[in-house]
């Protein structure tokens, strides 16, 4: 339930989230560049209307003059005004570059879209054609074309466009293929939308950014090639000005009058640079932060004060917990708190579950412990006591020494955690040699080789239930199934002999039969090695299977905590009860209900968290009093609940037996 929301569907080229549009956005440099290009185009197209002198007007008294009041940019060897000639030659210098872009895209993109749509055979044909074009030496082709047809700049640039269509095709084929894997394209096809419309409405807009970037770059190339050809004398016929021609003229007089080179050279260079800067700065907004995610700062503070008081009041009696998190607050730098005032503690050799829906802050809490928060998110308050030290205040260097050795972590995507380039054996023996000193200094002082590290690695793989460790050591990640990869990741986590293993949704991406195997493995590790596990999960069944204690999180707070039997058997908080009620599992002997009790609405975004109970907006039991801050109070034995009217406990027999638990009252049942 967390995976899809973490993967933006369109990281190749999406739309900015706020507007939801696929339009490129510009940075300041890009805006300047775009302005330059627009002014240049307008100036050259309107040149006849404003130029101070006729293009070929010769002022024989002022040849090769520098800038002056009458000739702002000076004159050339025939006394013609340089400003006039640059402006008049603008369109013939820039226009053919544009034509090359239009031709290259006009051929390359439709070809790419067609190839992506029609699969292997069409793609092979068009790709061979593109490779053929790529293999041709373009400058020689262009010169040969000039030789055969003569100097027709527009025709020459059309040929260049055809040649450039091959790289354009290559770039957009890959793009189009990945866009076509998106489900909305499939949905449109199933709905019978014509293939042209699928391409125009769904595939092309997703590629808009790349198109803009490539167009700007190709345009720069086209302008340079045009100037190069004109410089060599293959430009417009002599009296007609073009930038390449102007530079060629200037180069004749470069020793006697170097200034002549400056204006034209500068304009050409600026144009090419502007096109490249524009290409760089075209970008779409990143991420998919929901509306209201940004901006508000007071939400983080809202819930903190009351919770601090409540927590100290009901401090756990355990004198020596392995992990004791007090009033932890995690916030976006300068933004809202994502986790506020979270407290829990863990005994040695036990399993604690953090459970809740996505957006409730359970992963942020887990990642804050070893200091592995994403960029821009930080611990804003509270403490993380682990083995007598407050990790929240430690510098990165000391945290790094703790990670892997004292605290290890496994994640939802085992395949992402393994490097596809290296063998499992290499990936396991590296940390073994680092953490255990094997390979540098053996137990009795002499150096122990890789063989020793390999033997330990094989032992770890056997410990995580891999039947043929030698074979797995030789294999690479892509040769493993998801379940095997997760076992390898657990073995990897065990290389530093950690005391605490943080498992973030370790089974969510796995099949249910494989999930059962991994849970059994984690349980036997806890039983046999005294490992403590902090598991993050959205699945109450996983929590019931593995955990001793559980903390239920809602909107950045722990709303209920205690032993698994108490919290899941007789939930006190309406949210816990509602989550249990929404679970589609029906115990044997009970009829399948016609409707599932569900919770109306969704988890509010951090910026929208109220000062009072954060669940009140979705809770059927909410009263006016819920608008005030709610402290955590004692509940079911050693547990705590953050609710002013907790549910009364269920009758003892059911709880002792644990089964079948009647569906709890259904707070927040829709319709």
């Amino acid at each position, binding site marked *: 339930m967390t995976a*899809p*929301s973490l993967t*933006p569907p*369109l990281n190749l080229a999406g*739309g900015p989230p706020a*507007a*939801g549009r*696929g339009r490129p956005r510009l940075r300041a440099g890009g805006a300047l560049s775009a302005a330059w290009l627009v002014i240049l185009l307008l100036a050259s197209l309107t040149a006849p209307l404003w130029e101070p002198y006729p293009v070929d007007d010769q002022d024989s008294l002022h040849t090769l003059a520098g800038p002056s009041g009458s000739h702002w940019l000076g004159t050339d060897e025939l006394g013609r005004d340089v400003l006039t000639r640059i402006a008049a030659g603008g369109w013939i210098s820039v226009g053919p570059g544009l034509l090359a872009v239009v031709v290259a895209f006009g051929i390359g993109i439709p070809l790419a879209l067609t190839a992506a749509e029609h699969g292997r055979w069409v793609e092979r044909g068009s790709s061979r054609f593109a490779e053929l074009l790529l293999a041709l030496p373009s400058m020689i082709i262009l010169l040969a074309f000039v030789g055969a047809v003569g100097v027709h700049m527009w025709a020459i640039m059309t040929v260049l466009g055809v040649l450039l269509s091959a790289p354009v095709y290559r770039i957009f084929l890959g793009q189009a293929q990945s866009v076509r894997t*998106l*489900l*909305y394209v*499939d*949905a449109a096809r*199933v*709905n*019978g*939308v*014509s*293939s042209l419309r699928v391409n125009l*409405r769904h595939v092309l*807009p997703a590629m808009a950014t790349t198109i803009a970037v490539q167009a700007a770059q190709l345009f720069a190339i086209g302008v340079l090639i045009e100037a190069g050809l004109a410089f060599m004398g293959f430009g417009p016929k002599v009296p007609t000005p073009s930038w390449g021609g102007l530079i060629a003229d200037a180069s004749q007089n470069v020793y006697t009058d170097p200034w002549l080179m400056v204006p034209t050279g500068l304009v050409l260079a600026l144009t090419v640079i502007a096109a490249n800067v524009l290409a760089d700065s075209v970008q779409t907004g990143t991420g*998919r932060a*929901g*509306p209201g995610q940004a901006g508000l700062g007071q939400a983080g503070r809202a819930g903190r004060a009351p919770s601090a008081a409540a927590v100290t009041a009901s401090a756990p009696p355990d004198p020596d917990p392995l992990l004791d998190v007090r009033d932890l607050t995690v916030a976006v730098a300068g933004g809202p708190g994502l986790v506020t005032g979270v407290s829990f503690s863990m005994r040695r050799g036990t399993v604690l579950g953090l459970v809740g*829906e996505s957006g409730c802050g359970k992963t942020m809490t887990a990642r804050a412990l070893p200091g592995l928060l994403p960029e821009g998110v930080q611990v804003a308050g509270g403490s993380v006591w682990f083995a007598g030290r407050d990790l929240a205040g430690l510098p990165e260097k000391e945290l790094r020494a703790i990670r892997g050795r004292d605290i290890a972590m496994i994640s939802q995507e085992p395949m992402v955690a393994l490097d596809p380039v290296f063998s499992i054996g290499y990936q396991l023996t590296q940390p073994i040699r680092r953490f255990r000193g094997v390979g540098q200094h053996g137990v009795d002082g002499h150096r122990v080789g890789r063989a020793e590290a390999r033997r330990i690695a094989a032992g770890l793989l056997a410990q995580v239930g891999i039947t043929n460790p030698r074979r797995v050591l030789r294999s690479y990640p892509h040769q*493993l*199934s*998801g*379940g095997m990869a997760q076992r390898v990741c657990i073995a990897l986590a065990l290389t530093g002999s950690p005391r605490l293993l943080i498992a973030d949704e370790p089974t969510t991406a796995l*099949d*249910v*039969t494989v999930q*059962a*195997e991994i849970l059994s493995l984690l349980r036997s590790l806890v039983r046999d090695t005294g490992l403590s596990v902090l598991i993050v999960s*959205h*699945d*109450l*069944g*996983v929590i*019931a*299977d593995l955990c001793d204690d559980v903390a239920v999180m809602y909107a950045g707070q722990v709303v209920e905590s205690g032993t698994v039997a108490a919290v*899941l*058997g007789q939930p006190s908080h309406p949210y816990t009860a509602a*989550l249990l009620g929404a*679970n*589609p*599992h029906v*115990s*044997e002997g009970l009829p*399948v*209900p016609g*409707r599932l*009790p*569900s*919770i109306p609405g*969704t988890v509010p975004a951090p910026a929208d968290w109220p000062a009072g109970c954060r669940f009140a907006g979705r809770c059927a039991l909410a009263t006016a009093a819920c608008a005030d801050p709610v402290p955590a109070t004692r509940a079911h034995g050693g547990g705590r609940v953050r609710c002013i009217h907790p549910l009364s406990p269920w009758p003892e027999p059911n709880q002792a037996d*644990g*089964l*079948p638990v009647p569906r709890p009252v259904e707070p927040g049942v829709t*319709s």
Partner: protein
Amino acid sequence: MTVPTSSGTAASVPALSVSGLTVRYGRAGKVPPAVDGVSFDVAPGETLGLVGESGSGKSTIGKAILGLQRPAAGRVLLHGADITRASLRQRRVAAIDLRVVFQDPYSSLNPAQTIGQTLQEPLRVLRVPKDKRWRRVADGLAAVGLPADAAGRYPAQFSGGQRQRIAIARALVCEPQVIVLDEPVSSLDLSTQAQVLNLLADLRGRHQLALLFIAHDLSVVRFLAQRVVVLYRGQVMEAGLVEDVTQRPGHPYTIALTAAAPVPQPAAQARRRAAREALGIAAAGAAPPPAAGCPFAARCPLATDVCRAERPPLVTGDDGADGTGSAVACHHSGQARGLRLPAGAA
């Protein structure tokens, strides 16, 4: 091999009928087919669950039905008309009332189009006049519990559950009779999942929809489906009424699948775990499946030589609530029914 129909609907034409469907991704002989001779019917107003783990071929079956993947063999009938090889273009006419809802509510909506544009796109194709189109878009949004002004907004402004409602509305505006639901709730949070499941149950009752409900979670399928087909590596392992298959499974794989799903009651889960471990099901991937025979043989505690040599046929048992029971593809189905979890452990 056809799965028994739920009741006296045998005489009427099924809304959707799949027979002997085989889909290959690689070359024949080299790679085992992703879907291997699967057959089932879905009656009008009925929901059929298609259950299996990753690699079972359940989503491939959905793609083949929708025309997104070309089958190597077999037939797909929509109201008795053969649409197996109909191209997407031909389906504009032939499969007007067959629609789909995909799993991922994020990539199934075009981020650059408003909800209204997304919803009215299929209506354009159906040549519904413009004024009626917007009426139907508003009706579709109302049917899934969203306000009409949602039409002017972009997908980024909606949560996962709301997006899935929009995807359902996109299927509904065409007034379909058959909807393929490919894991429609598996990427949603528990509370949202319940909302969407309730919505699907309501819509099915209101519109007499035939639903093909593809899922990996048997308890979700039990909530929504009347009948269920259990797949493993492209083959049907077990099929029958949902109560028979989930409560009295007859195939060792179905038993493994039911036993592995954890329940949110710690004491009951501890008993289920003990029972599951006692079954002796081998770990997935411990040994490759046999080239011939039953695909589950490598993991099955009951497997014998015949299982590795000969593919078991799908045979209807006599153990079910209605005296027929589920159809099971197992050489040792009699013994398998004895494997079942102890009654208290469910």
